[in-house]
């Protein structure tokens, strides 16, 4: 066991201290943010047209609060039927804001209906306007109370400090006339993002395991090594060591993206205010407060804990399964060219899983998504798409159990072929020979 620890630490340290790893780990989040935000930012700059938003305020309390800005013009309609306004959507009006009740009583009685996904800045400006008004309402209500006790003061404090939460639900008016809640958009993006991530990590880190096995075989260090340690320890050590490198990179990216996203979203939500605040306070310190909270609210509505937990579970399962297959290939051949024959079927399976995941975004509960999220070779990739939409517990458990069962099988198979393969030089073995190797003593 001690030997295993030494092997894992070598595999891990020799990789995380590599310059290329450090550079990629640090700069990737910036590159990613640039890829996501630069087009978004450019689109906001070009967007000069004024968008009209119809406000249907049944409570009559809030309509007057909305002031038109450079980008948005509010049209106030007292009491009207939403369906009457709908045909105008996408033509002369951009969105319909409907408030049905007093929001200080029911913070959920507000919704925004639009044809396209409403931009974040609009959502936050509406939320902020409503939130301010509701806070005012609450304070007003408290001011009428007869006795001012400490409880009232606490309430006032709370309202002033954290404002009032408004849950603005956003709806999309689809081409086919259906209305769907646009939080599914966030779910799709999150699911799709994690699918791409898990696919890339399995490909990159799985083939890293294969490279490492081949390098040992090519440099002929294997024989020196296996005279001191069991071959299976070398295999396990490599898979765990490299897997940990992957998790390190992911964790770093997760933290970096969290920070960068917070900073960037502040600027994008309200560029003028943010720049003024930044100028006023002379730095990043000025960007605290309500806006960040608002920006993060919709992202936080996704069950991150669950998704990250399952991401790790599926990453570990999928990585070990594919890495052991990759290691088997690496041990069986002498040189890079010979890997092709064995790599092709694996790549096809992975690509299939990737596309299955991609199409499952549109139909996360369809038969393709269902079956592919259970079948072990595709489940790590496809299940990530479905998770943000909610998946029944039994499906998750079954899928994880199948995946882990399979990875135990592939690991045993890999260990058997590996210990023979690393000592075999010369001609490329056939599948038949690989099976024969598994039976060797």
């Amino acid at each position, binding site marked *: 066991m*001690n*030997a295993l620890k*030494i*092997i894992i630490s*070598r595999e891990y340290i*020799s990789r995380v201290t590599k310059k290329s790893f450090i550079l990629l780990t640090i700069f990737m989040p910036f590159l990613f943010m640039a890829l996501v935000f630069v087009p978004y930012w450019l689109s906001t700059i070009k967007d000069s047209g004024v968008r009209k938003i119809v406000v249907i305020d049944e409570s009559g309390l809030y309509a007057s609060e909305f002031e038109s800005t450079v980008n948005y013009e509010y049209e106030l309609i007292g009491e009207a039927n939403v369906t009457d306004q709908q045909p105008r959507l996408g033509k002369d009006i951009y969105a319909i804001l409907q408030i049905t009740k007093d929001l200080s009583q029911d913070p959920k009685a507000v919704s925004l209906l639009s044809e396209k996904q409403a931009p974040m800045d609009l959502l936050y400006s509406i939320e902020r306007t409503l939130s301010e008004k509701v806070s005012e309402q609450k304070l007003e209500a408290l001011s009428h109370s007869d006795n001012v006790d400490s409880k009232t003061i606490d309430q006032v404090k709370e309202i002033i400090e954290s404002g009032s939460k408004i849950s603005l639900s956003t709806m999309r008016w689809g081409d086919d006339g259906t209305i769907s809640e646009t939080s599914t958009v966030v779910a799709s993006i999150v699911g799709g993002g994690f699918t791409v991530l898990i696919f890339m990590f399995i490909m990159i880190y799985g083939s890293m395991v294969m490279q490492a096995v081949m*390098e*040992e075989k090519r*440099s*002929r*260090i*294997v*024989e*020196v*090594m*296996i*005279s*001191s*340690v069991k071959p299976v320890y070398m295999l396990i050590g490599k898979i765990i060591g490299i897997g940990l490198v992957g998790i390190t990179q992911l964790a770093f990216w997760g933290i970096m993206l969290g920070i960068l996203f917070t900073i960037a979203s502040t600027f994008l939500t309200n560029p003028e205010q943010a720049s003024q605040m930044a100028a006023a306070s002379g730095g990043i310190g000025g960007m605290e407060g309500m806006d960040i909270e608002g920006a993060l609210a919709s992202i936080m509505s996704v069950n991150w804990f669950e998704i990250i937990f399952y991401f790790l579970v599926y990453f570990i399962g999928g990585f070990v399964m594919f890495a052991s297959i990759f290691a088997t290939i690496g041990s069986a051949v002498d040189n890079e060219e010979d890997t092709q024959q064995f790599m092709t079927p694996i790549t096809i399976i992975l690509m299939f899983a990737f596309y299955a995941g991609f199409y499952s975004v549109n139909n996360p509960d369809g038969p393709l998504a269902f079956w592919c999220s259970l079948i072990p070779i595709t489940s790590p990739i496809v299940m990530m798409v479905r998770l943000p939409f909610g998946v029944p517990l039994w499906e998750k458990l079954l899928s994880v159990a199948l995946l882990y069962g399979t990875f135990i099988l592939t690991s045993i198979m890999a260990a058997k072929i590996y210990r023979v393969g690393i*000592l075999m*030089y010369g001609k490329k073995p056939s599948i038949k*020979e690989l099976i*024969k190797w598994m039976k060797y*003593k």
Partner: protein
Amino acid sequence: MHYVETKDVVKQFSQHLALNKVNIQVPQGSVFGLLGPNGAGKTTLIRIITRITAPDSGEVLLNGRPLSREDIYKIGYLPEERGLYKKMKVGEQAMYLARLKGMSRDQAHIEITKWFKKFDIMTWYNRKVEELSKGMQQKVQFISTIIHNPDLLIFDEPFSGFDPVNAELIKQEMLKLKAEGKTIILSTHNMESVEALCDEIALINKSEVVLQGSVYDLRNQHKKDIYKFRLLCNTFDNDSLNLEVLSNIRYNEYTDVRIKKPTDMEQSQLIKLMLDRYQIAAFEEELPTMNEVFIETVTQ
């Protein structure tokens, strides 16, 4: 006392019988030569002794007991196909291999420093392996083999790639290890080093042990009744003797002749025949070299 003993070891690969009931006995504290042509099964036998592969049947005894997992720490193995991690630093590499042999970090550091100094490669400690010449890498590999002070050392072609100076250095180290009581198994095609180093040998040909015993005994067994005479005369005249003369080289002061003794003649008779006619400065029975023994046995 035999330190290593194999009993009826059989190993079958898919199409090919690599070892067929191989029995060898390696005495404790000796240098044991494992000889044989390419593909005879030497490496397979070594891999079985080092527990890299398992035999299909038969067993290996180490110090009288069946070989167990813990015994690998008592073995130092320098394979013929040897390599190092190219991107790793020399010192780290030696440390890594030493720790895998069960040494603690501190212990390993002391030993590495000692051996690096002895082999004059201390300045290379922080260089990458890929910057080293082949000979340098061989030194690192040799050190890695003996660093954990094993009782049994197995060297597969240890001299290949070394210049004569370093080959001699390795040879001397091996003799020192032998003097310390270590048992050494040496597999090589270099027959001169077998004569210089080995006490006993086993010759494997076509998966079987065809010859085993001490180097001296084997050479004696294979002698061809050839005698070398240095005669203090200018000419050697065979007409009256009618012996089979293998060579006859005349020098200014003396003549060297090699004579094959007829089978029906005693050694003393031959000497007497020569003494009667010539003044003999030197006389020696010629023993075959290990090279000759090897070729003769294998091509039989």
